[in-house]
């Protein structure tokens, strides 16, 4: 019997290892090339390659490898090759913290990450202690709240997305009352708090606030409560699959008020899951989602990145991949002038102005570590299963 137990144990261990293969360290610097004369810049990255946030983290990892490869092929930064050390936090903030100490012991000069708000927040104090720059790729508002000496972000802040939604309701829809349905996770709750804070300032009344658990099978009860109110629109703040479930349930209950989503549904998954119920849903997103909404230099950057990514990975990059692109390239830009000194590097990132990235035109200052503004997001409508820009009516 013992051999059976051993066999089962070995089998499960093997499968476990298979599941964790994403956790192994990956370096993009090709070892076959002749050693660069100058010491390589070691950049750490903590992304959620596996686990629930993997649809965000996996493309981010791909992008980092792709961009670093590009930088190195072009001769590196002032002759320094870039070595990227990618750690997978498996969508768990605890692992992200462990990864920080591992990366620090490797001597990284900056850390890109995390993929999610909880991970970014968990590693923020650790990285600040080490006094090296952190480039977060998540949208949670507190990430760049004080103390923010060492943390920057490349995702548009939730605050920007919320303001975009509020502007849309006030200026385009011209409504007064709306209801909120949000996920009970940190993304949904931070969005709800921000909506509650900003709505009264814009003269909007929130008539009902309901929530659900990420994996709830049915939201008709919450929606029934909302149906009984005078709401003129429903704002759903969450990440898949919840918002798709809500869209389907709304149709079942015959609720006809407009559905406004968050940037959490700016992916094809939402359209696939909600099917016909996705039609007419409007949500804020970065311009990369609807490349035609970008103009001039940004359109060029987006198209170039998209075709490069597609050529290498046979898949379209999502907006999260864009956050990784911006993070590594802003860092590379700053390294060009600052070198690897931590203080100089931070000051140089703070001097970033007019950096044309995927998620927007970045302008960091000593006070603003968000970089992007309202202008970097657009309202997008789902029509015939495709994204189109919902143009705001001109201000009077």
């Amino acid at each position, binding site marked *: *019997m013992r051999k*059976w*137990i051993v*066999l*089962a144990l070995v089998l*499960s261990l093997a*499968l*476990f290892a*298979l*599941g964790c293969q994403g956790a192994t360290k990956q370096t993009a610097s090709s070892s076959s090339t002749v050693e660069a004369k100058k010491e390589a810049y070691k950049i750490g990255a903590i992304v959620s390659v*596996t686990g*629930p946030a*993997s*649809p965000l983290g996996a493309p981010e990892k791909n992008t980092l490898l792709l961009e670093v490869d590009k930088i190195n092929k072009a001769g590196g930064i002032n002759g320094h090759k870039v070595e990227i050390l990618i750690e997978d936090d498996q969508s768990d903030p605890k692992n992200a913290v462990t990864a920080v100490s591992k990366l620090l012991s490797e001597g990284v000069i900056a850390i890109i990450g995390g993929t999610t708000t909880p991970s970014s927040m968990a590693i923020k104090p650790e990285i600040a202690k080490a006094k090296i720059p952190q480039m977060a790729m998540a949208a949670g508002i507190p990430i760049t709240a004080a103390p923010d000496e060492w943390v920057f972000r490349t995702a548009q802040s939730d605050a920007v997305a919320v303001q975009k939604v509020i502007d849309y309701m006030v200026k385009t829809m011209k409504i007064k009352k709306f209801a909120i349905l949000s996920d*009970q996770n940190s993304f949904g709750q931070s969005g709800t708090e921000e909506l509650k804070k900003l709505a009264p300032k814009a003269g909007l009344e929130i008539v009902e606030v*309901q*929530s*659900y*658990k990420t*994996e*709830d*099978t*049915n939201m*008709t*009860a*919450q929606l*029934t*409560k909302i*149906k*009984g109110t005078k709401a003129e629109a429903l704002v759903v703040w969450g990440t*898949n*699959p919840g918002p*798709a*479930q809500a869209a389907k349930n709304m*149709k*079942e*209950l*015959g609720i006809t008020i407009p559905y406004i989503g968050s940037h959490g549904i700016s992916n094809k*998954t939402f359209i*696939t*899951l909600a*099917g016909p119920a996705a039609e007419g849903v409007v949500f804020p997103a970065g311009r990369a989602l609807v490349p035609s909404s970008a103009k001039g230099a940004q359109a060029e950057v987006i198209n170039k990145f998209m075709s490069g990514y597609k050529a290498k990975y046979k898949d379209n990059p999502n907006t999260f991949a864009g956050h990784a692109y911006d993070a590594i390239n802003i860092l590379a830009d700053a390294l060009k002038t600052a070198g690897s000194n931590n203080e100089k590097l931070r000051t140089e990132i703070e001097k970033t102005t007019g950096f044309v990235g995927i998620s927007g035109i970045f302008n960091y200052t000593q006070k603003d570590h968000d970089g992007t503004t309202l202008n970097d997001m657009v309202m997008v409508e789902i029509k015939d299963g495709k994204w189109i820009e919902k143009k705001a009516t001109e201000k009077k």
Partner: protein
Amino acid sequence: MHFDQFLQYLISGITSGSIYALIALGFTLIHNSTKLINFAQGEFVMLGGLIAISLYSAAGLPLIIAIPISIILVAIVGIVFERLAIRPLRNSSNITLIIVTVGVSILLKNVAMILWGRDPQSLPAFTGDKPIALFGATITPQALWVIAVTVITVVLLQVFYKRSIVGKAMKASAINPPAANLMGINTSNIVMLSFAMSAGFGAMAGVLITPISMTGYSVGGFLGLKGFAGAVLGGLDNPVGAVLGGVVLGIIESLSIGIIDSGYKDAVAFFILLLVLFIRPSGILGDKVREKV
């Protein structure tokens, strides 16, 4: 609260509740023949849903063929699970075996993630998704499917346990395995059969609920927990009790959203679960606990 609103909460609760009930049934099946609690039950549901999705959308089979194949495949997974993980350890304590089921659930979840990716997927509703109006409230045809299948299954199970030789043998094996063995019952096969049935029923639940709630690799834990709570609430030994428990749990959740707030939904449901267990430790319809010292 208006009547149509109340009715909608009730329907909403019955819809979620019958999903929980179907999963709860799987728990009673294994518990009835082994006294075990199988924490991989939710993963059977997940596997059933995902296999059916693959057969339907990737292999292009019609639903009527994809569903039984999915159920049979998951039943085979149940058999393999029992042979490889439970049977070699059959002389261990129950708690060891229960921990083994937790391990298997993690294993199945990871394998599913590798095979199907991380995005949840859906199936079309069996008979259209046009909601049916009912006194101002609405119900989807798929919810009616879930309710109907739950009712039919529980009736058939009752007949199976009360009338058929195999069903009686299953009960006997649970109550006293050595004695059942002496009576000529092959308890080892009975345990295997109960795992196969439980996995099959789990898969059926997965297929039925996929059009309603979508299925991804990670839903097993959540659904398993709800099904387990339903089964405990109604009585782990009694299929009728498990179904009742599942439906009651769904209705409590839904009404607590209507009356209190959606944030307290799970708190209210689990508070009532604890209350019931405090008054009736064996669940609403469970057998009285008779432990011999």
